[in-house]
């Protein structure tokens, strides 16, 4: 087991920037993710990086504006589809 030195990689650390990003994006298998979370605790540098990247992703998700279409847009869309060749007329519901 290595020693945590702030701001530096633990000498035994096997984390890479790529693995940190895969972890925050949910791209590791469950087993890999568990192993990663154990390993990251032993390296101050990676643990810090992991927390910052995770926060950044959450920050973006919470700040970027989401749009909503009006019900009239959806009604008009259904109407247009109802007029398409091959359609039997009125769109159900």
């Amino acid at each position: 087991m290595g020693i945590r030195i702030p701001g530096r990689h633990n000498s035994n650390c096997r984390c890479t920037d790529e693995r940190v990003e895969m972890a925050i994006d949910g791209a590791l298998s469950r087993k890999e993710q568990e192993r990663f979370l154990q390993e990251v605790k032993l390296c101050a540098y990676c643990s810090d990086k992991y927390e910052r990247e995770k926060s950044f992703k959450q920050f973006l998700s919470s700040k970027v504006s989401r749009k909503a279409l009006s019900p009239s847009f959806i009604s008009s869309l259904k109407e247009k589809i109802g007029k398409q060749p091959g359609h039997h007329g009125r769109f159900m519901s």
Partner: protein
Amino acid sequence: MQENGNQEEQIFSEEFLPHADALYTFAYHLAYDEVRAQDLVQETYMKAWRFIRSYQKGTNAKAWLFKILKNAFINEYRKKSKRPHSVDFEDFLAYHDSEDSSYKDLDLNNEIFQDMMGDEVTKALNDLPVNFKTVILLCDIEGFTYEEMSAIIGIPIGTIRSRLHRARNMLKEALEGYAANLGYTKS
């Protein structure tokens, strides 16, 4: 015949329409214009209806619709662009490859980032080149997996990962720029 039609309408209503707002958000950030974004969403649904028989019920409707919308946007973008799109993008990558090798650390605990309005973050995102903006929107806003993004954009997973890494760094730089303009400097 009528039964097939009803089944298709059911797929459309139950599997396609629930993604309308997500598609609109994606289209809006790509086009940065509400009217164009609505046109893109409409075009997407019209195409989805036309090709509904090639869609397999219960599969990934959201990824399928996002792919249609992305293609519609790219076609429109290429028509409007004077220079071929790929040249712009490759020039841009060559420039950024020379200076982007590691993570940029952004201190989100800094009060300026906590106070930053959604509009400023949205603007920073919308200012990114379209290929970079796309991966951020798909991954960080819509939660698609690398595999799904690869299918939507039509590029290998390795390219998705490197593009996402660059895009995040570029966005952090832009946000730091905002903070600096507002009088906050890097600690």
